[in-house]
Each structure stands twice: as structure tokens, then as C-alpha cells.
């Protein structure tokens, strides 16, 4: 499917695009023409200088061996949740729970897009379009033009269980595009879980509208398949007094770029985005890129970016983050933290933590540190009898803690910590 990217970018013809009802057809046509004007990313683009877009847009098919987790239960298995399963990008109704829940309306994107009138019309491709400033995301536009599957979720109440999207990867040559639209209505609350690799190459867009006073909590664990590649995009619009929180855990993966564009449009809103990535380049390449743009366009809002990376054996980390404070966004409180722990000399980290501020009554800051493990702390632990590998892992987990703390639900946070701990333990042998 996305083999078409390279060959057809700029000229995605109407018949290459999926058939659909009026609103969806219009949105897809619009995306196709926007992409034609924008073109695909190149290494000369300011925000692609540290991550090569080539393999994400290449016409050559991507392959990734399916990860054998040796019967180990998947992450979140202990959490009571409403499961929606995609196998290589196709919704699997049999493996999924019923598409209903208290205060929830769930539909497949393919079903929704056949209808002539649908609430998703006001969001599909719309938040993505708005998110093209300050920086363009052509691969998200491509997604809007081409996506056939995904879910559209409208939340009107406070469902007791999280909605959980499970992306199974079974075909080693799958190339998948998924597009989700989520609308959390005024005062409603949703927790969204995601896990799995989805495909050898995965392009995802999630558009999230968090209405006044609503809450959206998102925790994601990206698949462990070593060769997989992923470009994911979140476009969020956060209204007054609403809360948006998103956390991503990444272990393994040849190439991952997680983009997140958040527009805060209502006063007193809160938006937090966090990530913990563990990469070991010994088993395979590991390149992880977090690219985040937060725009404050309202008064007295709070934003946080907390990204932690632990890298070794040639693993590469990239962080690009911007806080943009518009002229009238007074009383903004913005903080950005990007830290990397380089466990050996071959690992590398590149960062560009930007502040662009046009209002004066603000407190905005960022901190970025890069370096090896704290020798003093290590020595202290060893002097208490903890062997070096265990001491190192302890310090690694402690280093990641700031990011994990951004997960509000304790059970889910414990699950994430457990997985990270297991990853470290396995490598200790």
C-alpha cells in the first residue's frame, strides 16, 4: 500500500484512493492535493536532518520478521479493557470485543467513511491539516489520503474500562496505514491503550479532540519486532480545562519516529506528553525520534514534555521539541525535558529543544542532559554490594522514572515499569 508513497506522491489519483462516502472522499481528495503541493520529506528538511525519511517513503517493500515473544503474555494483559484487534492493519471483529461500551460510540473507519454524514467529518484530516503548522508532516497527509482502516471513537461519558487497540503483526512484509479519530466530548473521559507493531512498516495518524473539561489519557507500547519501522502522528486539540496526557514506551524497532502536535486552544488546559525509549543497537539497528510541537494559544495552560532515552551499541536517539507561545497566551507554564543516557561510546543522541515565545507573562524552560551513567551513584550501589549490571539497571529505571510518572493510572504504570525492567533483565542474561 504505502509502496505508493514514493511513486505516487503528488499524483495520488482518485482511483488509488479507497472508495468512500461523500465526506470521506472529500477529505481524502483534499489530502491528496495538499500532499502534491507539499511533497515528501527529504533530508534537507530542517526536521528530518537527524532521521532519514528514505526507508519510510521508499517504494521498495519493507520487511520485518515477526517477533517471537515465546508465549509471554502481551503488555496490558492484566488490565481490564475493551479490546479492538487489528491484524496487519485490518480490523479483526472476531478477535475483538463488541464495539460498544458505556458512554462510548465506536465504529471502524471503513464503516464510518461509507456514510454520507458523520461527526468524524469535522475531525478527519482537519486536525491533521491544522497540525501542519508550524512544521509540515507530509507523511501524515499521505496517511489522510490513503487510510482505509482505523477506528472512530466518540466518548460522551466516563467509560469504566480503557479502550485498547492491539496491533498484531503476522505478515513479515506488511505495510500498514491506520487512521483513528477520537472525540472526547465535554466533561467526558477516555483512557486509550495501544500495543503491538502492527506491521513491518506502519504509518499511523490519531486525531484527538479533547473538549472542554474532558480528559484523554493515552498509554502506548510500541511493538518489539526488531526490524519494524513506524511513523506515528498524534494531532491533538485541547480545549478549556481539558487534560491531554500521552505516554509512549519503545523498546526495539529499527526506526521509530513519533510525532505529536498539540494545539492548546482553551484556557486552563493541561497537556503532557512523555516517552521512555530503550534501544540496544547490538541486536539490530535502533533509531528513535520524538518530534513534538506544542502550541499555546490560550491563557494559563500547562504543558510538559518529558522524554527519556537509554541507548547502547550504536543506538541513536533524536529529540525535537518546540513550545510555541502565541502572543496572547499569557500565564503559560511550559516545561520540556529531554534526557539521554548513553550506556556506551557508540550510542548517540541529537536534540533540538526549542522555545518560541511571543507572550511575556510566561514561565517556560527546558533542560537537556546527555551523558553516561552517574559513576558516583554506581559506586555507591556497588559499595553496598549490588553487582554492577544490576546497579546499572537500577539506575536506568530510576532515570526513566520521570517519564513513567506521567502515567496517571497506577496499574498501567506498574505494567510499563515491569516491561522495562524485564527488557533490562533479559539483556543482563
Amino acid at each position, binding site marked *: 500500500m504505502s509502496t505508493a508513497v514514493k511513486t505516487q506522491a503528488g499524483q495520488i489519483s482518485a482511483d488509488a484512493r479507497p472508495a468512500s462516502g461523500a465526506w470521506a472522499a472529500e477529505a481524502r481528495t483534499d489530502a491528496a492535493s495538499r500532499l502534491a503541493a507539499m511533497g515528501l520529506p527529504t533530508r534537507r528538511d530542517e526536521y528530518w536532518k537527524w532521521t532519514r525519511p528514505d526507508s519510510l517513503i521508499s517504494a521498495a517493500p519493507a520487511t520485518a520478521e515477526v517477533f517471537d515473544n515465546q508465549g509471554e503474555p502481551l503488555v496490558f494483559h492484566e488490565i481490564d479493557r475493551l479490546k479492538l484487534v487489528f491484524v496487519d492493519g485490518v480490523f479483526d471483529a472476531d478477535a475483538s470485543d463488541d464495539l460498544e461500551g458505556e458512554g462510548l460510540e465506536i465504529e471502524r473507519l471503513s464503516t464510518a467513511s461509507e456514510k454520507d454524514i458523520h461527526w468524524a467529518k469535522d475531525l478527519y484530516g482537519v486536525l491533521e491539516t491544522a497540525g501542519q503548522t508550524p512544521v509540515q508532516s507530509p507523511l501524515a497527509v499521505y496517511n489522510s489520503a490513503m487510510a482505509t482502516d482505523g477506528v472512530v471513537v466518540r466518548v460522551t461519558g466516563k467509560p469504566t474500562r480503557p479502550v485498547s487497540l492491539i496491533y498484531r503483526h503476522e505478515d513479515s512484509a506488511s505495510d500498514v496505514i491506520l487512521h483513528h479519530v477520537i472525540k472526547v466530548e465535554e466533561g467526558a473521559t477516555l483512557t486509550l491503550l495501544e500495543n503491538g507493531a502492527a506491521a513491518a512498516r506502519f504509518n499511523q495518524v490519531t486525531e484527538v479532540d479533547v473538549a472542554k473539561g474532558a480528559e484523554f489519557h493515552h498509554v502506548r507500547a510500541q511493538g518489539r519486532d526488531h526490524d519494524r519501522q513506524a511513523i506515528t502522528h498524534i494531532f491533538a486539540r485541547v480545549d478549556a480545562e481539558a487534560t491531554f496526557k500521552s505516554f509512549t514506551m519503545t523498546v526495539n524497532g529499527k526506526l521509530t519516529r513519533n510525532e505529536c502536535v498539540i494545539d492548546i486552544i482553551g484556557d486552563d488546559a493541561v497537556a503532557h506528553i512523555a516517552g521512555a525509549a530503550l534501544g540496544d543497537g547490538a541486536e539490530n539497528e535502533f533509531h528513535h525520534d520524538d518530534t513534538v510541537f506544542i502550541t499555546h494559544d490560550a491563557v494559563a495552560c500547562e504543558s510538559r514534555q518529558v522524554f527519556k532515552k537509554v541507548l547502547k551499541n550504536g543506538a541513536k536517539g533524536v529529540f525535537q521539541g518546540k513550545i510555541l507561545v502565541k502572543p496572547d497566551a499569557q500565564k503559560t507554564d511550559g516545561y520540556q525535558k529531554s534526557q539521554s543516557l548513553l550506556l556506551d561510546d557508540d550510542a548517540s543522541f*541529537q536534540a533540538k529543544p526549542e522555545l518560541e*515565545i511571543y507572550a511575556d507573562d510566561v514561565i517556560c524552560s527546558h533542560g*537537556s542532559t546527555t551523558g553516561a551513567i552517574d559513576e558516583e551513584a554506581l559506586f555507591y550501589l556497588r559499595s553496598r554490594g549490588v553487582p554492577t549490571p544490576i546497579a546499572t539497571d537500577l539506575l536506568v529505571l530510576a532515570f526513566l522514572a520521570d517519564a513513567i510518572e506521567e502515567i496517571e493510572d497506577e496499574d498501567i504504570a506498574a505494567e510499563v515499569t515491569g516491561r522495562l525492567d524485564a527488557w533490562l533483565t533479559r539483556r543482563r542474561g
Partner: protein
Amino acid sequence: MAGVDELIAKEGVEEETVEAVKSLAGAYKYGWETEIEMEYAPKGVNPDIVRLISEKNDEPEWMTEWRLEAFARWEKLEEPSWALLNYPEIDFQDQYYYARPKSMEEKPKSLDEVDPKLLATYEKLGIPLKEQMILAGVEGAEDMPAEGRKVAVDAVFDSVSVGTTFQAELKKAGVIFCSISEAIKEHPELVKKYLGSVVPVSDNYYATLNSAVFSDGSFVYIPPNTRCPMELSTYFRINAENTGQFERTLIIADKGSYVSYLEGCTAPQRDTAQLHAAVVEIIIEEDAEVKYSTVQNWFPGDEEGKGGIYNFVTKRADCRGDRSKVMWTQVETGSAVTWKYPSCILRGAESQGEFYSIAITNNYQQADTGTKMVHLGRDTKSRIVSKGISAGKAQNTYRGLVSMHPKAKNSRNYTQCDSLLIGDKCGAHTVPYIEVKNNSSRVEHEATTSKVDEEQMFYCRQRGMDEEEAVALIVNGFAKEVLQALPMEFAMEAQQLVAISLEGSVG
């Protein structure tokens, strides 16, 4: 109470702030013009103009060729647009590239022969071209002999160097301090070896243009194991209208030497913008140390944003030798547009680079400034302290790069980058690039943006200060770490500038 006397001495620098604030009334102090007969090259730039400049300077053939090659490259380059700067397109053909006072046609043999009008100009700027002690006006500054301190001055007026003081005395110490045009003739071997070796001819658009058309500037060579007996300084004055100033500075600190170099700049107040594109190259050999301080006070344009200097500057120090050291300190208060990133190439093992900067923008000024610390050698260290202050409708950007190459083992960087906003119509931005390619190095970067603290303002006002005075005091405190890095007499001037630059920014 012993100690109190000492205390005043040590505190001397900032002690004077308040007086400074009060003693200086008007805004831009240096906006007047010297009426003097000038000789211009025809407007515009082309190979003929490049040859003409070379000819005016009596240059050898190799230098002319070097320039022409640079010009050929420049024609192929495009003006960069990545900085957060917004200014009308510059018509590079609508400028004079060479302007020299008629009286300088015959190069004066000594300072006594210099046109009195030119001498008067520098006198009025507070830089008398006399070989006298400069009294720093700071009570009991410890490191200063009772009779004052000597500072040698090279004075550049539009396109030419007017004269250089203390040359004889410096010569005795083996130090060469002269205009670059003189050095090309007198010390071709040094110039040939080092010119363009730190900032290559085609480094960037403005540096390439400078390589083709630079008309004068300063040259410094400090021989091995020599501590330069006095501070060296160059004072740049743009006087002529529609004229670009393109100066070139080359500083070579040979093994084990030390020099502190100061640079000042001013220009008359005019309605049309003027271009300034300089290149500074510094070569620092083993165990040598260079301190380079700038107080940049080009005309910033008026309150409506009319006029002012467009300042595009490439400054780079190459710490070639082991344990070499460079310290850039800059106080950027002038210019309508500033595009400037004094950088350090830390090549030698255990070499060190420091960058201290205060950038103040008010009214419609725009600054995009910062530094690059490129760590190539092992055990290298760098430190960046940047204080940006934005007021009025100004935009102020810190842009920097810290790069740890794979071989730069055990290296360190610390960056502190603070921005202060005064008023809700201005902007403050931070664009740092961090690249770390080994794990024995440590990079720490911190940045904050906020407005002047209200509690501090109220505290000052409760003690009787008006708003403007309180802001000047707090801003000077905010910028203190950088002010302290300046040589004493510059620190005082800088403090006054901080206050003046912010005039009219509150209330």
C-alpha cells in the same frame, strides 16, 4: 570594618550602574556624523570593484586572486533564510563597498600626521588615539596599576584603518598589531598561512562576500610564550552613508601566549539601513589563550524601526593546540538586525571554549545570535552563558550548537540560556542544537524564559526606585555573569548600555 574598602573595589563594576543610568540621558549617544571629504568606489560589487579595493590597498597579486575567487563563489551562493529574522531584501548592488576619507589617500606615517578631523572623531567617541593611559574610572580596581592601564587601539573609519597606537612598544615585545592591509604587505607569510584557515572562503554567504571585498581590519600576532603587555582593541566606526563596512580581523596566538582583545562599534543615526559584514578568525596554538570581547553598539534604528545597521558577522576561533583556550564575551545592544554566532573549534586536547553573551533588543530590533561549540579533541570543555533581553516590539533568538564528536572523549559542555521579556509585544526564542556522539562526554543544557519578576520590581519600588530604574537594576543583575566576564572598562560601558538600551521599554 576592614573589608569594606576591598568590598567596594570588588563590587566596583556594578557599583556604577545607578550613576550610569542617571548620567546618561538621551538614547543613542553616537548618532552624530563627521563631516569629512570622502572618496568612494562606484556603487555595487563586481570583479572590477574587487580589483579596485585590492589596488587601493596596494595588495600583492595573490591577495587579489584570493578575493576574486571568493567573489566568484559568492555569486553562486544564496542568502540564508533560516534565522528568525525579518528584513527587507538587501540590494547588494545599491551599496558602496569602499569609502575612504580623502585625507587618508597618503597613509599617514605616524599618528601626528592623521587628519585632525579623524582624531577629533575618535576623541568624541571617547577613544582618544593617543598613547596614554586609559583611566578606567573604577575606584581601586585591584588588577590595575595606580596610573591606569594601557590599551592599544586600531581605529577603523569606514573602509580604512586610520591609525594604530602603541605599535612601537608592542613591537618591542614581539607583538604585531596593525591593520590587516598593512599586514598583507608587511607579513605576507603569516597572512597567507592563516587567512581563511578558520573561516574558509566559502563558509557562508556573508563571509564569502567579506572575503571578496573586505577593505581593512586588524591583525594581531603574539609570539610564543608572550603575554601581550597591554590590551588590544579595534574601534570600528561607520560614518559614510549607503556604505557597507566589511572588516576582517585575524588574530594568531602562538604557543603559550596570551592576549585580551576588545572590539567596539558605532555608527551615525540615519533613516536607511546600512550593511556590515565582518569576519574574525582566531588561531590559538598550544597553551595559548585569547579573550575576545565585543561591545556592539551599532545604530539600532529609531523607535519606529527606521534605519540601523544590518550586522552579519562570522567569528570563529580555532583552538588548534592542546590546552588552548578562548573566551568570547559579547554585549550586543546595537544593530537593527544581528546575525552572529562566535564559535569555538575545540581541536586540541584539553582545549576550552567559553561564550558569554548579553543580547538586548528593544523597539524593532531583531537579533539571532549564539555560538557553536564543536568538540573534536579529548577532554575539551565549553561553557555557554547567554542572556537575552527583549523589549518593545523586538525579537531575540538564541541559536547554538554543541557538538561532541566521537573522538572528543571525556568532554564537557554546560549551557545556560536565559531570556527575559519586557512587555507583551516582543518575542524571545531559543533554538539549541545538541549532538552527542560518545558517552564519556556530558552535555547539560538549561534554558528559561520569563518576564521581570514582579516581586523584585515591587521590592525595588518600595525602596523608592521608579520602574525604569528598577528594570535596569534587575536586568543588570540578570546579566551579571556576563558583565563580569568583560574587562573592567568595558563592563562599565556595557552596564550603561544595558540601561540606555532599555529606555522607554516600561510604563
